[in-house]
């Protein structure tokens, strides 16, 4: 059964790695901008350092594309200066799942070819 959303989801793939990380961070928990940036840095093993300008550009596109929305809920120790909190939408969840599946498929391919173990296949 083809989900009518499939086409919309597919339109967002493949995700830029940075965007993927942002969505992953939001998938884990609703948070504000700086929180997302921190999470991305941790998850990528300190490889991806997002700064304010680029981050907000991605964020704006995600908001406009309907993958992310402002969250009404705020944690109890909220500091208003932190700005808005953001969460994934249903579409966003679908997209990040689809991308993960796509990446997994690629990893499976490399395992088949034996590249992961460092040796050549016969």
């Amino acid at each position, binding site marked *: 059964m083809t989900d009518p959303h499939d086409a919309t989801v597919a339109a967002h793939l493949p995700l830029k790695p940075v965007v993927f990380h942002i969505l992953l961070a939001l998938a884990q928990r609703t948070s504000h901008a*700086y929180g997302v*940036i921190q999470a991305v840095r941790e998850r990528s093993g300190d490889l991806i350092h997002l*700064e304010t*300008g680029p981050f907000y550009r991605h964020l*704006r596109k995600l908001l406009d594309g309907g993958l992310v929305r402002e969250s009404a809920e705020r944690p109890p120790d909220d*500091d208003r*200066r*932190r*700005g*808005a909190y953001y969460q994934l939408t249903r579409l966003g969840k679908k997209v990040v799942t689809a991308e993960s599946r796509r990446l997994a498929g690629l990893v499976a391919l490399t395992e088949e070819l034996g590249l992961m173990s460092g040796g050549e296949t016969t």
Partner: protein
Amino acid sequence: MRSEDGTRPNSRCNRLFNWLLLAYPRSFRTRFADGMQYTFERQLRDAHDKGGIALALFWIRSTLHALLFGLGEHLSGLRRGMRASVPRTGTEQVRSIGREIRHANRRLVRNPALSITAVLSLALGIGANTAIFSIVHGVLIEPLPYPEPERLVGVWHTDIDEDRWGHARISYLFYRENNRVFENLGIFRNGSTSLTGGDLAEELPATWVSASLLEVLGIAPQLGRGFLEDEESPGAEPTVVLSHQLWSSRFGQDQNIVGQTIHVEGSNRTVVGVMPSGFHFPTPDTRLWLPMEIDRADPDRSYWNSTAIARLRSGVSVAAAQAEMEALAARLYEAFPDRENTAAVFEELQLSAVVHHFKEDVVGDVSGALLIILGSVGCVLLIACANVANLFLAHTEGRRHEVALRTALGASRGAITLTFLSESTILALSGGVLGLALAHATAPAILALAPQQIPRLENIGLNGPVLLFTLAISLLSSLLFGLLPSLRRIPSPAGALQSSGGYRIAGGLRHRRARNTLAVAQLTLALVLMAGSGLMVRSFQKLHDVAPGFESPGLLTMRLHLPGAGPATSTATVAFYQTVIDLVRTVPGVQAVGAASGLPLEEGGTMLGHSFEDFPLAEDEFIPNYLTQLILPGYLETLRIPLHAGRYFDHSDLDGPGRAVIVSAPLAERLWPNQDPIGKRLTPARYEDTGVWYDIVGVVGPVRYESLEQPATEMIYYPFAPLYFSPDTDPIFSGTLSLAVRGNVAPSSLVGAVTAAIRSIDLNVPLTNVRTMEEIVARARGRAAFSTLLLVIAACVALLLGVVGLYGVVSYMVSQSTREIGIRMALGADQGSVCRMFLKQGLGVATAGIILGLVGTFAVTRLLGSMLYEVSATDPFTLAAVSFLLFAVALAASYLPARRATRVDPLRAVGQL
């Protein structure tokens, strides 16, 4: 107050970041500003922890991000807006554009004050730019009218003093034979010659050319042919090529002219060709071309006064040609009979060659002045645009209700931008058309004022590229002030539809900042222009005060030419001129008459190598050249060049073995400081071996012979007879003398009587260049005067526009603040303090403009450097004067609307609550 994660707001960095955020559109800021602030603070702290360089890099990156992404957001916003409003089909598009234009037109017509002021300001700015650009295009940009003109190069010699030399026959032949970079090489020399025969004797500008020269240029004669190399040999059949102009005016376009003989310079020459019309080489004045005499057996090596042009082989660059010619110049001595000595002389001189595009020789040093003037009128256009932008901002301010309504009804930002743009385009194009008409009307006047030294004058006109330029700057202007209102915030529908006073003040504040900034920018540019023109005016004044060394008022001058005179008849020549002088002296009103081989401040002067008895030269030392003149007794007295020592010439110096010379003071002071030069001996270098020496009998005052800007020339005056050479080997002195007539009436009134007197002696003597000495001196000041005039006009227009802008800004402030004024007055402020309040604001703008303008002046006026005579580019007197002038005018412009503020009725103003 600390927040839970320990960050203390660092207000200075916060404010800096706020500034950076201004690069983003307002909608973006509203959405994300808080989060961005916080994120930035945290990241700043992290970078701080990492240390100095990381922190600096962080700031740099943040700034760049803000600019880039901010711009990106602006563009995305516009794109989204446009996409919403762009109609789909082709006909829809055309119809919607048409509709927009008609609406825009209607709005502009309903607003005549705005439209007329804007169109006039723009017309002034655009017209000035068009006029100047047409000159720049005709002189600098348009290529020379020869096939493949970019391959034409001039070849010159340079020496250790970085003087430029021309060519001698010997160098021309050597280079021609030995180079591998030129397709062809030719030389030429300008001069004049007389054409006699029939009833008219004329002296005409003529050019002596090598046979190869016409081939180098690549233009074929209309009739007949150019010269053959055989015709260059001494003793060959004399030939001549006519210009189209001469052929038409003098020979009635006779189709059979080729083969006929005409009488040139006293001898018959066969016409071998006629050049096509439009062929102006080297200038439009040249009337005929004569073959240069080149003796290939013993080529002349004394006169290095010919100009060389070459055509590069295809694929050869100027740099390659330069390298080749430098190498050849180093070998030039090989062509000389005395190789060793010549080699030593050339090496000491550091003789070398330089090659550059021939166009540079044609255009000369005019380009600097022209580009400065173009920059100035560009500034004037910017100021005009700022004025129109201000007008436009006020106009759109008043329409924010309309805009808000349209936005609420669904019009996108792009559509509204389009509306403003269509209005601005109509205004700008109208201004452009009017400006074009203005330029067309004033161009003849500008060119009439221009000194003849501007080359290629005939090329200047309102042609295709100039029209394109006008269109381009019109459209650019329309973008400049048309986009301005849409870059400002388009008011949110809800806010604008309220008419609460609170909103109005806020809106006014935003626009006020924009208008103030524009006014400051205008005044800055105006000050820079005023400073530039002020410096030029002072320079011109200083030049004007320069004493040329002789008394120019009251002098009439002309040139007399005796065709066919040669050394055999030198006595007869002297007798003739003496007769002329004696007869002219009897004309009523004439006080004194003199004759000399040339006059000061006219083109050209003869340089001759001299040896001095007191300063014998070593074998390989180079012979110094001095400006040399032949004069008849009475010349120095007629010009009232003062006598410093010794005596003037008298008639006994003309005949007999008399060997008298007079030198000018600068030469005497340099060679014999604190000594008496009278009695010292010198001789032209060519006579050194003959043992003929000349005695200095007098020292006269310094004369600025070459130009007013250069210091007085070291000169040597000879009495006429002894140095009169034959004209058949590059005449230094021909039979042409300049006559100077001093009268106690206006010189121009003497013209008729004097010329009649001369003609009564010999009807066939051509008389040319009849003008007063004052005209000659004025001409010498000519180029400076022209540039100065244009700059002053530009500065005045700039000041006017800038001040009108300031007036507008202060008026606007007053009109926006009526309620505030009412409240203040109701609370007891008197009229004076209200007036002073606005005066202060206006003067604040003016002061900012002046300070920024002074900064700009320091940066920019060094460009004027070479055009200024004895005035430094940052002359404090001038800068202070123009600053003061601008301040005073700004004071007046602020005072008038400030006074209006005092007439506000407090009750009514407050009653608007």
